[in-house]
């Protein structure tokens, strides 16, 4: 068993690594500029302050976020690339360099072209010259550089510019080969991915671009609500559906069982969001007669001061009744039918006959043999239900306006708050992996067929 445990736990790390990589990959594909949003929060509007100040602030925040680090532990880049391209934070600037490089495969030439250009931009006076130089430096298609250069040569005649123009001449010539050889760069642990993972586990997840508050603080506040929903929902589900499953398994074909199982079949097929919407629409207002106004309206009562999340939850306990009810009713059907099928499967086993042959009564056979064995597979299912109920609680939180993880995710999506979004995705992924791990370990611990290797006969 030990070897199984070790194997299973070892598998945990690649899963975390992959989920981290996946979220990191998505995070890097986000369309909006989080740095700019953060700057705006801090009061630095691009148009209001000087460009220089803005740039330096931008750089500061970006390096705080580690954006000037390489993306991953290592990289394969073309051989003519510089080793430190990652230090250029501005995406457009980097793209310009890369474009120039793939037109003219020589870093020395390209870099001195850019350097000369920058020097000239700093020193030249006339606006016209500046514009021409910028045009050359920021040429959209490097293939057009030579034609642009010819037209610029006519105007730019001063001797200071000539070194730049020479350099531009060199870069404008295409220099490529049909096959590029890669070079391997090793960056060690100072890279963005490593920082992403280690920041996640140390809880420093950055700031929210919506209100500037730390992401972890927002998440941990929301977590209380989600946890209470999930825990309450799961425990009521188990408390109700296990006895229900037993009852329906033991009373096989009675009319009541068939009626009830049909009822639950439909409840199960009902999308949770529809069911919850129906409940909210019909049973929280007096629109349809006073008797339908059973539950309090959606949302959490406004609260004063810095109460702890726990006391807020307690104060709003009655707000949680309907959401928990929706979650429970929806999952009872599933769990009770699993309990039922598991019991029926066990009672078809030959050891049931053996137990009866020993002289145990039906009842004793059930409680001593069938029931404990039937519960075994439930361990995995219940532990595995935790991640599934996180998804369920997202929708419930949105409908009932409960400030949990799901609601936070939902709001962050509309606010382009990527740090929050991907911290939540990562968190849910890690919770999922951990609960599957716990489920597997528990099951294998409880089940001697796995606990002891079959090959070793006594």
């Amino acid at each position: 068993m030990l070897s199984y445990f070790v194997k299973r736990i070892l598998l945990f790390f690649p899963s975390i690594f992959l989920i981290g990589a996946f979220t990191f990959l998505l995070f890097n594909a986000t369309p909006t500029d989080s740095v700019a949003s953060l700057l705006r929060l801090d009061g630095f509007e691009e148009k209001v302050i000087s460009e220089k100040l803005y740039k330096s602030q931008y750089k500061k925040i970006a390096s705080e976020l580690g954006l000037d680090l390489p993306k991953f532990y290592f990289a394969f880049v073309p051989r003519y690339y510089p080793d430190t391209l990652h230090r250029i934070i501005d995406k457009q600037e980097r793209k310009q360099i890369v474009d120039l490089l793939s037109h003219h495969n020589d870093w020395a030439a390209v870099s001195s072209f850019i350097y000369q250009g920058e020097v000239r931009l700093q020193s030249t006076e006339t606006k016209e010259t500046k514009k021409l130089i910028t045009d050359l430096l920021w040429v959209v298609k490097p293939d057009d550089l030579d034609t642009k250069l010819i037209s610029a040569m006519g105007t730019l005649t001063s001797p200071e510019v000539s070194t730049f123009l020479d350099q531009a001449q060199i870069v404008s010539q295409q220099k490529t080969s049909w096959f590029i050889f890669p070079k391997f760069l090793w960056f060690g642990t100072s890279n963005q991915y490593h920082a992403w993972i280690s920041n996640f586990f140390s809880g420093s997840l950055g700031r929210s671009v919506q209100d500037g508050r730390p992401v972890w603080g927002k998440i941990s506040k929301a977590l209380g609500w989600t946890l209470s929903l999930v825990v309450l929902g799961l425990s009521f589900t188990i408390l109700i559906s296990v006895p229900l499953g037993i009852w329906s398994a033991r009373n096989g074909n009675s009319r009541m069982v068939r009626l009830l199982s049909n009822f639950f079949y439909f409840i199960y097929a009902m999308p949770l969001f529809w069911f919850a919407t129906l409940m909210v629409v019909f049973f929280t207002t007096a629109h349809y007669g006073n008797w339908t106004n059973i539950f309090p309206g959606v949302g959490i009562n406004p609260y004063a001061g810095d109460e702890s999340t726990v006391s807020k939850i307690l104060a709003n306990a009655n707000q949680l009744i309907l959401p928990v009810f929706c979650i429970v009713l929806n999952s009872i059907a599933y769990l009770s039918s699993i309990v039922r099928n598991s019991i029926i499967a066990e009672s078809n086993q030959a050891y049931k006959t053996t137990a009866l042959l020993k002289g145990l009564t039906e009842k004793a056979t059930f409680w001593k043999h069938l029931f404990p064995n039937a519960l075994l597979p439930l361990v995995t299912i219940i532990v595995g239900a935790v991640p599934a109920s996180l998804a369920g609680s997202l929708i419930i939180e949105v409908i009932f306006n409960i400030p949990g993880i799901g609601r936070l995710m939902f709001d962050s999506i509309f606010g382009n708050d990527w740090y929050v979004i991907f911290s939540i995705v990562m968190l849910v992924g890690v919770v999922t992996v951990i609960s599957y791990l716990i489920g597997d370990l528990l099951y294998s611990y409880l089940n001697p067929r796995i606990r002891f290797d079959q090959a070793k006969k006594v």
Partner: protein
Amino acid sequence: MIGLKKIWAFRKGKWALGIISFFLVIALFADFIANEKPIYCKYNGEIYFPVLHEYGEGLGLLGNYEFLNNKSWQELQLEEAIFPIIKFSSGNIDQNSSAYSRPSSSFENGFQTKKHWLGSDSIGRDVAAGIVQGTRKTLSIAFFAMLISCLIGFVFGVLSGFFGDRSVRMNLWAFIGLMFFIILIWFQWSYNHWSFGLALIATFVLISAVFFLSPRLGGRQFYLPLDLIIMRMIEVFKSVPALFILLALLAIISKPNIFTLIVIIGILRWSTIARVLRAELLRLKENKFITSAKAIGSTDKQIIVNHLLPNALPSLLTVIAFGFAGTILLEASISFLGIGLSAEEVTWGSILSEARNNFSAWWLAVFPGAAIFLMVVACNYLGDTLNEINLRSN
């Protein structure tokens, strides 16, 4: 092959087939069921078929009717007309009727009386028309997404279940070299030196060359652990919280169209199909009829096509039926959250989500939800029936 007749023999199967074909008909003839245009009309002595004409316009074959002059059909006095049952299109905002009209409230509009059979929403869009047009979107998203996940799941399922860890053999050094060169090829592509097609062709040529040469090379042989690799992939996909990833992806794309939605859902949902197919193939492979087939000289392809797939099909169909329900639910949930298709695209989920804004408009909650529910029940019934047939035949 499981005939429809067999499914029809079950009570649940009858319901499933009934409901599914009902929605299929709605999806196919959506334009004839809910449309602001008449199906047939006579105007100024000429006979027109405006709905059919619309298809022609869509294909670019026909131009718009000139006599319309940017007027809507309601503003014309038609001599004769047959209108669809629902005289609205899904996206069409009705200025004349108030928002939130109750079901089967009717009103005069230009020269005709129109009825909101199932009520209207906050900006006067007809719910019935939305449901009818939404049927087409929902069904096609679910169908094509399942098609994609079936294709991926099928390939991976067969690779891991049939070939497994110990049937694809190759020379160790040939394999390492192959990996090296494939990386090199795609490196060229990623730095824009080679086009995608060239890289693809080069990879293909390289792989076939290695597989052709490798058995002739001898040397240290190495089994490609396909099953191991694919099982790990499935495990990782299983621990991906689908809804959360989907939401994050859609947030990044920000304006997904039907096509991107189909691709994303399809890619997220292949692992179940691969897993079931793998388990089924592993179970079937133990049977002696597979050994017999080998003994009479069947090739791998013949064994898969003649024996394994026909026997694995019933359980595969069961999973697909349940997967279909799951896909519909997933699509409806994201539309409900307002993160799916853009707001102009009316779907079942998007109509339902409007119910949250006005609790007195019960019809916004009841009807679209009922459509989702019916479709999900039908798929579950179908899955149950297929499962039952499968159990009985074993």
